[in-house]
């Protein structure tokens, strides 16, 4: 039984050693922040590891061949499991607080699905194929990454869509959320408390950025805004995976199957280069 592990180690030692070196190097670089005037861009070690790893792949520097690249894909799923375990423990530890949150907080979780209706049509118009399903069914934070990779496999176009939005979101998420919060607040259509709840839709750092901005705009609510944002963030952490499994993905796939034949045809007429889709191999 150990022989299959041993065999894998012997055949793909370069992948495991490479990932170890990449991870250690990226962790030594640490979290890098750029001040770009309107806010801060954040680069996590994970982003460095992904980009450098990608550069060494068969497309560019060729340190890893196609088979090794595939073996790394299998390890992505293995790595996701402890990550999901950590999120699960976090959800369980906060379960008692669920009782304290009101109906508005619970229901606004369904608002998270609204992105599908807005982003999927545009993604299709931009020429994305099945990547659009992974990219558009949720805000693509950590638990969604686990879900898509698990359901479609690490090499599927759907997973690439989720992964791309996850990575881009981790870099621009904080700066964009604080920008977005101040723009939407200036419309004066939503109650400050509703905006506070909405600031918890993404990652913890996105929530902090958005709630901070909102607290500065609405000093009267400055104390309660981070509390609601935090509760909403925690709630998304608990409900996200079930929302995605039972509503988000089925709904997105259904809409994709409805829209893609029409939009895809228009797009195919405009550009010959349809190779940009997921079926590259």
């Amino acid at each position, binding site marked *: *039984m150990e022989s*299959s592990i041993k065999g894998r180690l012997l055949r793909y030692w370069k992948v495991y050693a490479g990932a*170890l070196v990449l*991870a250690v190097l*990226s*962790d030594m670089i640490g979290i890098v922040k750029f001040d770009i005037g309107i806010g801060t861009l954040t680069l*996590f*070690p994970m982003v460095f*590891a*992904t980009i450098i*790893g*990608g550069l060494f*792949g068969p*497309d560019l520097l060729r340190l*890893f061949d196609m088979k090794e*690249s*595939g073996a790394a*894909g299998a*390890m992505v799923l*293995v*790595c996701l*499991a*402890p990550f999901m375990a*950590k999120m699960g*423990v*976090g*959800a369980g530890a906060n*379960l008692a607080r669920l009782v304290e949150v*009101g109906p*508005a907080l619970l229901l*606004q979780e*369904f*608002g*998270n699905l609204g*992105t*599908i209706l*807005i*982003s999927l049509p545009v993604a299709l118009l*931009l020429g*994305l194929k099945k990547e659009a399903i992974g990219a558009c069914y949720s805000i693509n934070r950590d*638990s969604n990454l686990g*879900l898509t990779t698990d359901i479609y496999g*690490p090499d599927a176009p759907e997973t*690439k869509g989720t992964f*791309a939005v996850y990575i*881009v*979101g981790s870099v*621009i998420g904080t700066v964009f*959320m604080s920008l977005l919060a101040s723009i*939407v607040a200036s419309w004066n259509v*939503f*109650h400050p*408390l*509703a905006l506070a709840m*909405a600031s918890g839709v993404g990652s913890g750092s996105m929530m902090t950025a*958005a709630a901070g901005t909102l607290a500065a705009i609405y000093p009267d609510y400055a104390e309660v805004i981070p509390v609601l944002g935090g509760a909403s963030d925690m709630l998304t952490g608990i409900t996200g*995976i*079930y929302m995605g499994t039972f509503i988000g993905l089925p709904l997105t796939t259904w809409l994709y199957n409805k829209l893609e034949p029409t939009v895809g045809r228009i797009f195919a007429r405009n550009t010959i280069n349809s190779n*940009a889709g997921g079926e*590259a191999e």
Partner: protein
Amino acid sequence: MKAKAEIRFFEQMGLLALAGTIMILTNMIGYKYTLVQSLQGYAVLGGIALAGVTISRFMSRFIKLPTMMYVSLTGLLLACPLSPFKEQVIAWANNFAFLAPATALGAFAGISLGKDMKNFGRMGVKLIAITVLVITGTFIMSAFVADQVLKYTGSV
């Protein structure tokens, strides 16, 4: 049949140990936890991961649900207020930084995506546009629903 399941169990354990080695290093280098803390943390998280995957394999005979959902659910149940082990589970899991598993994940994902770098480069601007749209859509719709419910329930 049983032997096969056993092999897969040990194989999964080996792979988790392999991934865990990198994650423990990340937890120590990137997040300044001690070796003992990191080992405790990974014992809990890796254990939950292994249990979740095993339960998922067993359950898939009856109903097909994402493996990661079982992993997450196992963690949730072990840490929930009703769990007799909650203090131990939460305390040890707290010795592992939230993003500590992410660096290893990123490294493997990077090597895996290495075959599609040209594609990603070509789609780069589009993907940024989609990300912006996804975040905007989620935020506004969430604010809209919260706003409606708050008004309907007379909270504001």
